[in-house]
């Protein structure tokens, strides 16, 4: 996909988010600046990975991009159009363009709602598609994400974590969005299930030309899925660039420390560690 000249699907200009912490008997009210002016743009069919630790502001940014929270300052453009959800609530058309998948598939599905209803609800709220077609589309989407049509009438508790994340992804795709915001979508999953969900996301991106904003703290996942990488620390984008550039030559000390902390599964590294340990043991009296 070579869309360098096309308009970005999503663009942020100097996004700032403040959280107001109310005062109490002992503390004065303060403002916490969670995002300190973030710029980014993602073109159609590309994946921007936002990397950072807890408290870095990465999920705050994801919520702004997903039109859940309004930024304190700055401008957000979806498909070239400025969006200000504080002034005007997003209508069905805009809601259909941007959808979100959350980290915890155990918390993001209503336990009392059947899977079919989970998938049809976005259509009920945002479109006037007739009931029969809603059902048809939901069943088609189930098989798209690797589930069976007979899963339609089951409840979320009857599914494993990986299957639930597939349901959450299916729900996000029901409105044919152009942008999917994924907040740590595979962090709660087992390694092999994680691989399946990442494969699914890659397939869906190809099929629907989806644009992803992928929030993660796991660099090995980011290396696999991202085109562009933005590293956030304490509300600031400390490093931004193509995946190749960031991984080949991380320039900011924070990015370097993230790389240093990521476990190495390389055989040579293990060999060195085992040798170090053996040497340390030989020195110790038995």
């Amino acid at each position: 996909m070579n869309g360098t000249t096309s308009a970005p699907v999503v663009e942020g200009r100097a996004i700032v988010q403040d959280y107001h912490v109310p005062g109490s008997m002992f503390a004065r009210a303060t403002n916490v600046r969670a995002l300190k002016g973030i710029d980014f743009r993602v073109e159609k069919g590309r994946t921007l990975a936002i990397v950072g630790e807890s408290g870095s502001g990465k999920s705050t940014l994801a919520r702004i991009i997903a039109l859940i929270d309004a930024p304190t300052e700055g401008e957000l453009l979806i498909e070239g159009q400025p969006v200000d959800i504080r002034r005007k609530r997003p209508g069905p058309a805009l809601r259909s363009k941007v959808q979100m998948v959350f980290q915890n598939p155990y918390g993001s599905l209503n336990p009392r709602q059947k899977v079919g209803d989970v998938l049809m609800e976005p259509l009920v709220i945002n479109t006037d598609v007739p009931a029969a077609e809603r059902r048809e589309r939901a069943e088609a989407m189930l098989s798209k994400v690797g589930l069976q049509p007979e899963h339609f009438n089951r409840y979320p508790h009857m599914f494993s974590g990986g299957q639930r994340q597939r349901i959450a992804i299916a729900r996000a795709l029901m409105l044919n969005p152009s942008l999917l915001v994924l907040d740590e979508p595979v962090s709660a999953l087992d390694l092999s299930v994680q691989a399946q969900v990442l494969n699914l996301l890659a397939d869906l991106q190809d099929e629907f030309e989806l644009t992803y904003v992928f929030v993660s703290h796991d660099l090995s996942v980011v290396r696999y899925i991202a085109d562009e990488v933005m590293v956030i620390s304490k509300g600031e984008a400390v490093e931004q660039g193509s995946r190749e550039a960031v991984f080949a030559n991380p320039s900011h000390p924070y990015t370097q420390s993230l790389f240093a902390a990521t476990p190495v599964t390389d055989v040579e590294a293990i060999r060195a560690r085992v040798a170090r340990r053996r040497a340390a043991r030989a020195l110790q009296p038995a």
Partner: protein
Amino acid sequence: MALLTIRNLKVTFATATGGFTAVDGIDVHVDRGEVLAIVGESGSGKSVSMLAVMGLLPDTASVTADEMTYDGRDILAMSSAERRRLIGREITMIFQEPIASLNPSFTVGFQIEEVLRLNLGLSRRAARDRALELFRAVGIPEPEVKIDAYPHQMSGGQCQRVMIAMAIASNPRLLIADEPTTALDVTIQKQILDLLMTLQEDYGMALILITHDMGVVAETADRVVVQYKGRKMEEADVLSLFEAPQHPYTRALLSALPEHATGDRLPTVSDYFQQEAAR
């Protein structure tokens, strides 16, 4: 010199639809001062087998084994009083959710001092001093201040340090860590793993690390047991496991690591089982 030996462990849970076998004939042994990693995905029975050793399973579980000995002593034949003296002193355990493992209503200092007073019979003052010493050993900043903090006032990494301090309070000879870093960021994970390894070497403890993360295994283990659906798939020293995994499931787990991706797609475990079935 095996410290803990388990042979043919079976754990079955009574459910409404009949018995469910979570662990089906597992053999595990760990030597003094050794780091053993037990790797597996959810449902592999990796936690259940260690909870069986600790006696922490609910009443619906039935535990049988041909042998379960600690330092030559039969754990299954012990009286519960004897077992209590062993568990929590010589064998201790830390869990995945550090914040959930601590009682939110008491200060962390109170909770660790309670362990010291009950398990080691220390006086209040001695317990306080020892708690401060342990906080320093596990690298909690400003121990004098933090000892009076409540769990919610500390970060996840700090809470896990408190749990580790509690677990090493009695100088155990075996520490079982069940997914100790899963809930933590990579940089904090690194710090906690480094801490566990340092303590393990300094105290000469054996460490059983239960994890699903091959990266954690690569950075810590001497020897590795791979479990799948309650059975042991493979056992090897860490280098052989990564260099030449024998079992197809282990190969599948290793190739599902995103950093080992060669093409556009990540191989998944089910791909491997299909290949095996097709042969």
